[in-house]
């Protein structure tokens, strides 16, 4: 049976959606291939269908969902937008970096002598001023450290010089801890030793002062 143009039009969607039986499909194709009116129609509708199916949804107005929710659930509390960054920043990879940056900032802040509100001027924010300040603070910290080490050395030296005068057995416990176990030295001998030690200590302190003087 040969199909007419009307029959072809009626079954066009079935053909395009592969809903025709094999024999119907053959009849359809036979007519479409030989009919100068139906051939372009099939091609047009087929192309148009492809275009329709390729169309994406139109973008929705940005506040539409919020408007609907306000309309149905009533006005809601606005979520604080920046809070959504907290879980992200709390991840180890970001948290470590953040802590490092904060520590660096703290060191620089400390090195520059902190911020004194009363004396704060615009010139303090000049990078050159910050670097110079950090540099002088670093040198000052180094000098203090050197002085501290020197002082410590002097103190140990004094202790070691004084120890033979107060205790005849170095390496043992302090005299005050075990006074009864030790034989007390002769009084005049002890006085002479103490005087000598004090003279040496005074000389050492004078030397140390000379060395640590800027």
């Amino acid at each position, binding site marked *: 049976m040969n199909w007419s143009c009307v029959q072809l039009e009626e079954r*066009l*969607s079935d053909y395009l959606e592969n809903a025709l039986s094999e024999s119907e499909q053959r009849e359809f194709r036979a007519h479409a291939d030989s009919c100068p009116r139906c051939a372009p129609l099939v091609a047009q509708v087929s192309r148009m*269908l492809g275009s329709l199916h390729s169309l994406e*949804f*139109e973008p*929705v*107005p940005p506040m539409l969902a919020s408007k609907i929710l306000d309309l149905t659930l009533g006005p809601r509390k606005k979520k604080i937008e920046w809070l959504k960054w907290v879980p992200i920043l709390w991840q180890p990879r970001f948290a470590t970096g953040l802590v490092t940056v904060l520590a660096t900032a703290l060191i620089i802040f400390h090195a520059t002598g902190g911020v004194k509100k009363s004396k704060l001027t615009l010139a303090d924010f000049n990078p050159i001023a910050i670097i110079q300040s950090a540099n002088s603070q670093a040198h000052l910290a180094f000098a203090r450290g050197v002085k501290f080490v020197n002082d410590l050395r002097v103190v140990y030296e004094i202790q070691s010089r004084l120890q033979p005068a107060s205790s005849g057995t170095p390496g043992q416990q302090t005299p005050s801890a075990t006074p009864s176990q030790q034989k007390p030295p002769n009084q005049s001998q002890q006085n002479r030793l103490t005087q000598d030690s004090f003279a040496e200590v005074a000389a050492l302190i004078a030397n140390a002062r000379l060395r640590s003087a800027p």
Partner: protein
Amino acid sequence: MEADAQLVQRCLKGDGPAWEELVRRHSRRVYNLCYRFTSNSSEAEDLTQDVFLRIYRTLASYRTAYGGFPTWLTSVTRNLLVDHYRRSRRDRMTDALEDVLPVVEEKHSPVRTPDKAAMAQELSAQVQSALAKLSPELREAIILRDLQGLEYTEIQQVLSVPEGTVKSRINRGRIELARILQEMGVGPS
């Protein structure tokens, strides 16, 4: 992803986040259905709000026997669109002749660019313009089948007409739409 039916049950128990999820999941589809039918983004937005307001108020009447939640949602949308069309047709009776045909918003640049996104946008606007010239019956059938991707049985439920009528409308709508696009000089590739 939680099924729509479960979300509906949670909504009925007063669960706000469940309703929020339903709105976010389906507002795009509803908006597009309204936009394709009205050719006006502002009207489509208002209608989408009306649809969800009605859905919210009648959620207790939803039964899974009606079909899936999207089908029920589409039915409600379609009913509101029909009401809107009747209302606007009555309003247009007093309007000038040039206002009778729906005006398609200019969404594309007059200058053609080889950019794919621009071409897609232009095609979308041309299809929209052609859809606006179809009769409402054929237009809704085409939108539901070819733009929203509904099955024939779902369309049958939404339109409350026999399957034969659905198929016939879709077939006639496609032929008519292709003819209109041809007259507009649009050669879909």
